[in-house]
């Protein structure tokens, strides 16, 4: 059940340039890949929406980039500190069994694909992961993905790690049954336009509530106005007006 809970920080570490990983104890009943949480950051009015990167019975992990005041404040938090978290939120990724799937993640958008990769692998899928970063010092989770994926390829814009190019340069396979993508909007649009098969993407929007109460995050889709927080953040390629 979606609810507010007080979660204790277990770990909060800098894992790549401007990139932090935080592990929290939590009641994770109902968590699924693609869900996100809305974190109250002391001193800021609105909660911060952050994807669930991984979870187990004891708690969950998020990976966040320090971009503004809220995420910089989060990076100052210490193990033992308690955060008010509203979770789980969103619809989550669809399940697939015994299929050949592609997971494409750009930058911090890679994080929510990790729990997904684990579930897909457990469900018998052959999981190819394509990850895009700007530079080698921004690379994170690559080892972890390598452990669960059939194939994991990284691309960096400057070629300092993996192949040179955007995330599509890291897509080496073909004929996927389904793709999952998360990252900058431009990347998602490009993937939806170029990848032949069906797939789904996880979107970001500025949010107030995160649970469907304010219409702050609603976008136009082929099925009318949809709330990214409640009806998404995962949308089928065919739902979007791209």
């Amino acid at each position, binding site marked *: *059940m*979606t*609810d*507010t809970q007080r979660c204790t920080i277990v770990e909060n570490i800098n894992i790549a340039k401007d990139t932090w990983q935080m592990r929290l104890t939590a009641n994770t009943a109902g968590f699924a890949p693609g869900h996100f949480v809305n974190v*109250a950051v002391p001193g*800021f*009015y*609105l*909660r911060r929406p952050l994807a669930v990167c991984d979870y187990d019975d004891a708690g969950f992990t998020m990976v966040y980039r320090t971009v503004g005041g809220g995420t910089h404040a989060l990076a100052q938090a210490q193990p033992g500190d308690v955060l008010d978290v*509203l979770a789980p939120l969103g619809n989550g990724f669809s399940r697939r069994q015994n299929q050949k799937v592609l997971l494409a993640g750009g930058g911090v958008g890679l994080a929510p694909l990790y729990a997904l990769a684990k579930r897909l692998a457990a469900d018998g899928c052959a999981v190819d992961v394509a990850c895009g970063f700007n530079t080698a010092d921004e690379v994170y989770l690559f080892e972890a993905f390598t452990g669960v994926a059939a194939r994991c390829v990284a691309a960096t814009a400057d070629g300092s790690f993996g192949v040179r190019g955007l995330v599509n340069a890291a897509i080496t396979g073909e004929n996927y049954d389904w793709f999952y993508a998360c990252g900058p909007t431009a990347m998602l649009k490009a993937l939806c336009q170029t990848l032949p098969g069906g797939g789904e993407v996880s979107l970001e*929007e*500025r*949010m*107030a*509530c995160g*649970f*469907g*109460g*304010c*219409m*702050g*995050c*609603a*976008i*136009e889709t082929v099925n*009318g*106005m949809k709330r990214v927080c*409640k009806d998404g953040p995962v949308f089928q390629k065919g739902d979007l007006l791209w």
Partner: protein
Amino acid sequence: MVNKHDLSVEMSGLVLDNPVIPASGTFGFGEEYAAFYDLDILGSFAIKGTTRDARAGNPTPRIAECPAGMLNAVGLQNPGVDTVISRELQAIKSFFHKPVVANISGFSVEEYVDACRKVDACDNVGLIELNISCPNVHGGGMAFGTSPAMAAEVTAAVKAVVTKPLYVKLSPNVTDIAEIALACEAAGADGLSLINTLLGMRIDLRTRKPVLANRMGGLSGPAVFPVALRMVHQVAMAVKVPVIGMGGVASAEDVIEMMMAGATAVQVGSQNLVDPYACKKIIEDLPAVMARLGIGALRDIIGAAVSV
């Protein structure tokens, strides 16, 4: 102990168990909140601003953060009054067993009249809140809220066709809010509701463009509380009809402060968005705060600070 404290208030014949009402636009049509707690503990709740015709609202981003508050430029996204009546107001009956506040917006007197006439006929509508103050839509709403003559015109036109109490929701983006309140009262308003959001703006330093697609949006949250309180006080001093106070209310203490300023009931908006339990906590906290302050019946403090 708790029962010693009487929280009930009365507005234009409508008796509320307590003065706490989630504000329009921050509570959807209730459904999302019913998943968090039993909404029947509320005094009432105000449904999302409804217009005669369906509206898609503004493009995103619609939300920006501010110190102790937020901007929104949702732009009155709603499915239109017919769908609200046939679907939402019906659905509400399954989880809320009291009358709701129907918040109605429009872009012409005709639209307001049409939409109000329709919701007035709904059995679970207890009060109509005429929103003449939405800052997030062009060519409408706000113009009515900034001109006493236009505010009076739409009030009188709607009053002529409704049977339920008619409260006019005022804009704070005016030089003299008491003047507009008096015009509405004279035109037949049964009460006033205030404040709607203060027009504000934020710029994204990286893109050098406004954060909101709509450029400007409405400021709400604790930041606006002192301005809201002042306006509630000014209007309560000026008019004889009841006032519903809102703007930045986040605690039981804030509810009491609004009532001392002259509010008969109090709406809670943005705070629901950052804490879905906000109204529940406020209602649960009220008896203890009243005890601490020596308040027996909440209604006794309405306007306590007005007549000094």
